[in-house]
C-alpha cells in the first residue's frame, strides 16, 4: 500500500483499483449492492454508475481535506461527507431517473456504507494527493461497475434468458429462477470469483515467467 507522498504510476493505480485490488474480486467489499440489485444487467450498471459518481467525489473531497481532520473524528467526518454525496445522488435519481430509483430502492442510501467507498477514503484518499485519488476512484468505481454488470448479466441471462431486456437464449429456455433469487446471487458470484481466481493464477504465472526470463537474461549478461 502506498503511503509515501510520491507520485505513483497512474496506470498502476488504475489497474490496481480496477482489477488487482478490485473491491469485489479481491477485497470482498461492497457485496450488498452487488448481490442485492443485480437481478438484471441494467440495474447493475446504474448502481455501478451511482457508486462511481459517489466514489469520485468522495475521493476528491477526502484527499482535499485530509490534512485538516483529526484522527478521532476521521470516520464520522468522512462518512458525513460520503453520506451527503449519496443523498445528492439519491435526490437526483429520484428526480430524473425515477424508475431506476424505485428499483434500486434501499440500496441507494446504502451506498454510504458501501465498504468499498469508506475503505478507499480511509486507505487511499486520506493518504494520497488529489490526482492519484481521482485515478484510484475511477479504477475502483469502474471495477465495481464492471463486477456489478458482470454479475447482473450472468443472473439476467441465466435467470430470464435475457440481456439488457433482450431475449438471448430463446423462448424454449426455461427460466432458472434460482439465479434471480438470493441463493442464486451468491452461487453465481461464487463461480465468477472462481473464474477470477483462475485468471489471476494465470496472470501470476505469466508474471513469474517474465521475471524468471529477466533473471536469466541478467545472469547471462553478467
Amino acid at each position, binding site marked *: 500500500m502506498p503511503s509515501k507522498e510520491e507520485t505513483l504510476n497512474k496506470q498502476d493505480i488504475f489497474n490496481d483499483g480496477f482489477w488487482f485490488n478490485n473491491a469485489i474480486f479481491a477485497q470482498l*467489499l461492497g*457485496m*450488498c449492492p452487488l448481490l442485492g440489485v443485480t437481478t438484471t444487467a441494467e440495474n447493475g450498471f446504474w448502481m455501478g454508475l451511482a457508486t462511481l459518481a459517489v466514489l469520485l467525489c468522495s475521493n476528491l473531497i477526502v484527499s482535499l481535506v485530509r490534512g485538516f481532520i483529526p484522527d478521532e473524528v476521521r470516520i464520522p467526518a468522512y462518512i458525513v461527507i460520503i*453520506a*451527503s454525496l449519496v443523498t445528492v445522488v439519491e435526490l437526483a435519481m429520484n428526480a430524473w431517473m425515477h424508475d431506476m430509483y424505485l428499483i434500486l430502492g434501499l440500496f441507494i442510501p446504502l451506498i454510504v*456504507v458501501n465498504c468499498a467507498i469508506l475503505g478507499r477514503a480511509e486507505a487511499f484518499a486520506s493518504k494520497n494527493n488529489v490526482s492519484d485519488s481521482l485515478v484510484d476512484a475511477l479504477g475502483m468505481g469502474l471495477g465495481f461497475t464492471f463486477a456489478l454488470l458482470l454479475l447482473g448479466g450472468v443472473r439476467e441471462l441465466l435467470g430470464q434468458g435475457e440481456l439488457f431486456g433482450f431475449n438471448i437464449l430463446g423462448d424454449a429456455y426455461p427460466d432458472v429462477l434460482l439465479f434471480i433469487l*438470493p441463493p442464486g446471487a451468491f*452461487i453465481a458470484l461464487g463461480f465468477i*470469483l472462481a473464474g477470477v481466481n483462475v485468471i489471476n493464477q494465470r496472470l501470476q504465472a505469466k508474471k513469474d515467467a517474465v521475471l524468471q526470463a529477466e533473471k536469466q537474461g541478467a545472469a547471462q549478461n553478467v
Partner: protein
Amino acid sequence: MTEFGIILLSAVLVNNYVLTKFLGICPFLGVSGKLETAIGMSFAVMFVMTLASTASWIIQQLILIPFDIVYLQTVFFILIIAALVQFVEMVMHKTSPVLYQGLGIFLPLITTNCAVLGVAILNVQQDYSFFASVLYGFGAAVGFGLVLVLFSGLRERLEAAPIPEAFKGSPITLITAGMMALAFMGFAGLVKV
C-alpha cells in the same frame, strides 16, 4: 404480544438480513472465519444495531419529521451510527483488549455495515412503534448473528476440506452462503407481510 413475536420471527428467520435482504454481507463473509470471532462480532452487531434502531426512531420522530427534513435522513443516521460505533470501539479497547483484538479491523467496519444503516432506514420506513422498532433492530441483529455463527461453523469445517484450487477461499465461501440462503428459503411464508 403476538405482534412482537411476529416482528422478531420475521426479522430473524423469514426476512433474514443477510440471506434474503442482502444486508451486512461484507462482515458476514469477513468475520466468519473463526467461531469465536463470529460470536464476538454477533454480540457487537446486536448491540450496535439495537442502539441504532433506537436512535434512528428517536431522530426520525423527534427531529426529521417535525422539522420536515426527511431528506437528511441518511446523513443523520449515519452520523449517529458512526459516532456510536466509534464510541463502542473506544470502550471495548479500554475494557476488553481480547475482544478488541478478535474483532480487529471489523469494528470500524460495523460502521460500514449495511445492516446497521439498513436497519435504521427500514425501521423508520415501517412505521413501527418505539418498542417495536427496537425489537425489530434487535431481531434483525439476532438474525445476522445466527447466520454468522452457523456460517462460521460451516467454514471451519470447510477449512479442512480438499477443495479444488480454483474454488478455495471466497468462491466456496460464497457458494456455501448460497446454499444457506437456499435453506432459508424454507422459512418463506412463516410470517405473511
